[in-house]
């Protein structure tokens, strides 16, 4: 599974990080700037929770 974070949409609500700190990290401004990355199988559930929590719909999940 992959996550794609749209930097233009992210506004720093930090909800992804609150739901799934093991998956999403914020930069020093509080934005998620992680771009596209692969999620390890044991963290897929968390990644989905974090993506769903984004008020700006800035995180897309691409299933394998």
């Amino acid at each position, binding site marked *: 599974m992959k996550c794609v974070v749209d930097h233009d949409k992210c506004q720093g609500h930090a909800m992804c990080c609150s739901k799934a700190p093991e998956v999403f990290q914020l930069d020093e401004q*509080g934005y998620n700037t992680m771009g596209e990355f692969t999620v390890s199988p044991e963290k897929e559930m968390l990644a989905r929770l974090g993506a769903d*929590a984004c008020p700006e719909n800035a995180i897309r999940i691409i299933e394998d």
Partner: protein
Amino acid sequence: MTALQSVAPTALPDHVPVELVKSFSFVHSPGMDRCPHATVAKLATEEPRIFFDPNAYGGPSWVLTRADDLRTVLWDQRTFSSKGAAGFSALIGDTWDMIPLELDPPRHTSFRALLNPLFTPAKVNELAKGVRETATDLIDRIAGNKQCEFMEAFGRPFPITVFMRLLGLPLEQTPQFLKWEEDLLHSDPTDIQTKANAAREIRDYLRTLAASRRAEPREDLASFVVQASIDNKPLGDDEILGIYYLFFVGGLDTVAATLGFIFHWLATHPEEQALLRADPSKHTDAIEEFLRAFSVVVTRRRVTTDTEVAGVEMKAGDWITVPLMMAGLDATDYPNPLELKLDRSPNRHMAFAFGPHRCIGSNLARREFSVALVEWFARIPPFRLKAGTQPTVHGGGVFGVEKLELEWD
């Protein structure tokens, strides 16, 4: 009686169709003084979805009622400007902006880059100890009393003390700040004189604060701001004032109001209160649900260029009232929006707005709510509304709770 009342379309702008003209007062419409959220929730189910209120507080304005339209307007800051959205400086004949709230790009972007790092989750973790001490100090004062007026004992002093510690202000001035907050934001909406006097006194106090920190910098946020620069240029006096002013207005009333609604709900829902008492792991989702159902802010935007929202033609210069609570009360996203589901997930409410003007203090506010729940449950047994009392609530630009009498055994 419906919340919307038809009004005579006199002196309407030419582009406003008569069928879209309605009058709804966020202050005075029936129901706003009993249950403002239930009252405005009706707007989201009625047509038209966007209406024009010639009598809106602050001047004639479009009013949005649906989550989708809020997203459209809050996202596009070039078409929908934030300049003048709060209007405190205009109240006293000044021209400074509240920063970053009343700025548009590119200045908005620069100021967010400067200020965002102060309120990240990591930074808020560093402030947590002070927030917790503030809460426990206040709760310990009333814990033995078996009753309290929540807003006076905790709802208002808690966020104001957090703000004063953050900015580096002497805590013995708290009563003065509470008075200013009361006069500026809670006096009779028609009493412009009281509001203007408070706005002026706060401005003068904050200007003096800037001068004193410039002369003798300390380890506080007030000093950070006077020493900051953007593009290698130090901030101007009005910019410093604009930032201080937003810290004052932004973080006090909104947090106090939300606490009031949360604690009223807990006091009247004993089973859910017991559930949250027993299991702090449920607090995070519960706080999001409280924020959704009890969003308190009504903000504004101004149209910069002729445009259309959901088929409604708007002209440059038009004002748009953007009630953020409508997003959480929109039945398209939340069937039965007035019913709270404490484990709701996902929960994409707009209590902290949406888009580039997302509340800069949202992480701190969430921490304040979380600390308030934990420390109240730890120190006060199950509480309820004091017998024979009803809370005093109000609508307006920030919905809120004036008085909430609680008691416990």
